[in-house]
């Protein structure tokens, strides 16, 4: 029985999801009858031009926005609003400047009713997992952008979510830091056995991290497309297969 349950953890089904925004009196449709199954433990990347609704989709998954129609089903349960089985990593680290790094990492678990001592213990564990054990007592303003983002990741991992939702998590980092962080994220994803949904505008990041890539159409009447990335891990960015997937994705956007 236990096996079956762990197998089902972090499975997401989207059914006929639609969402429009009212902008200047006009209705702008960003998602139209979207159906999608996200497998337990997989890494799904969502790419699309700006305005294609990729961030909106992630915010609906996070429970920060409501869909106009359709539903989100997680582990066979329809969900509404935020939930304990999900954690979000934003583009900005969103750390509380008045709390130490450790307090920030423990924040999520404490808010969810974790015992302060227990939360601190677990926070320490995940802080060392992202390589920042020595910075537990530092304040956020003493950290570099990459370090702050690691703290944000540790905070999300500390609540041990089944599903990790990432909204362009490395979009604000410099190129070198970004590559390092992608490698670390892959290692963490494998170790923690968590379902990841990654919104990104970086196609190479999508090919490097994802099992499948969801391409949202540029043109609103088009259909979303799924591309399976069939490459061994850890992936080699210069390998022919990798480069080919990147080319394929670029072509989806009419680029070369």
């Amino acid at each position, binding site marked *: 029985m236990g096996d079956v349950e762990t197998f089902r953890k972090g499975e997401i089904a989207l059914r006929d999801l639609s969402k429009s925004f009212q902008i200047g009196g006009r209705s702008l449709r960003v998602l139209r009858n979207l159906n999608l199954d996200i497998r337990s433990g997989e890494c799904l990347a969502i790419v699309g031009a700006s305005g294609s609704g990729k961030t909106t989709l992630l915010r609906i998954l996070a429970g*920060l926005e409501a869909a106009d129609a359709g539903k989100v089903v997680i582990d066979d349960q329809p969900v509404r609003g935020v939930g*304990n089985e999900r954690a979000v990593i934003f583009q900005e680290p969103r750390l509380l400047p008045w709390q130490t790094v450790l307090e920030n990492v423990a924040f999520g678990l404490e808010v969810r009713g974790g015992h302060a001592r227990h939360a601190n213990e677990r926070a320490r564990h995940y802080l060392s997992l992202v390589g920042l054990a020595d910075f537990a007592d530092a304040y956020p303003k003493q950290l570099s952008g990459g370090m702050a983002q690691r703290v944000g990741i540790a905070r999300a991992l500390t609540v041990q979510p089944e599903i990790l939702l990432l909204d362009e998590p490395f979009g604000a980092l410099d190129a070198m830091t970004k590559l390092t962080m992608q490698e670390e994220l892959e290692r963490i994803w494998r170790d923690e056995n968590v379902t990841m949904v990654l919104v990104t505008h970086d196609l190479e990041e999508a090919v490097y991290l994802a099992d499948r890539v969801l391409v949202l159409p540029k043109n609103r009447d088009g259909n979303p497309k799924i591309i399976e990335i069939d490459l061994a891990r850890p992936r080699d960015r210069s390998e022919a297969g990798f480069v080919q997937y990147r080319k394929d994705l670029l072509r989806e956007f009419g680029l070369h």
Partner: protein
Amino acid sequence: MSLQDVDRSILANGGSDGVKAEEYLQRAGARLRHWLSRYGLLAAFLVFWQAASSGGWINSAVFPPIDAILSSMWRGVFGGALLDDIAISLQRSGLAFVAAVLVAIPLGLFMGQVRPIEQALDPILQLFRQTSALALYPVFILLLGLGEASKVFVIFWATLFPLLLNTISGVKEVDSKLIEMARVYGASRPTVFRRVVLPGAIPSIFVGLRLSATTALLLLIASEMIGANKGVGFQVMNAQYNFQIPLMFAAIFILAGLGLIANYALVFAQRRLCRWSDVSI
């Protein structure tokens, strides 16, 4: 062997003592430069005052020398005459300030979070704020009499608004992305308030507290100049009537000192509460 070579060999043989002494001198020099850059102009101003007054360049009946002012202050404070004035003044401004804190901070925290209430009350708050408290003082005297109540109330009135408006804006300016982050972890409204909104608003509340403390002293003097027979502000006017100019300046200096102490105390408290941010004086 040239002279330079001798120098060099002495330096080389001088060992660590020489180096240590040099380092010490350097550090003392740096500290002196720092002190001079910060307080040099103030010291020069006081020295100039003293010299100009005792040298007769300016009318020493209007600007008595600093030493005369200090000795008058010494006599006033330790003879007890000024001590009573300081006590009553502190009581008036302290009462008003505490009352303003007790009203403005909770009210501001509430208003900052409830947009409709804030929007409904904002115009009237702006009107009250722009109406000089001193202009309203006669009204308060009519309502509350010429005693302590009207004095405390006029100070309270003037200190209320900087604190209230800064508390409101502090709450409103808390990063909404942090609030959203807390919501993602399932934080309830009280938790969001306690862990995100309140700590985020504290720097702005302290700006309000410092403005209010300054305003409290300002209004204290004004209110004591009208219909008081005690208080530091009264003493400034009274000493001038009696042509005790050194005493008048002594009272003025005490007021300046009280303002500085209040400000430093608040900066100190803010540094304790907000170790995470840099607080400037």
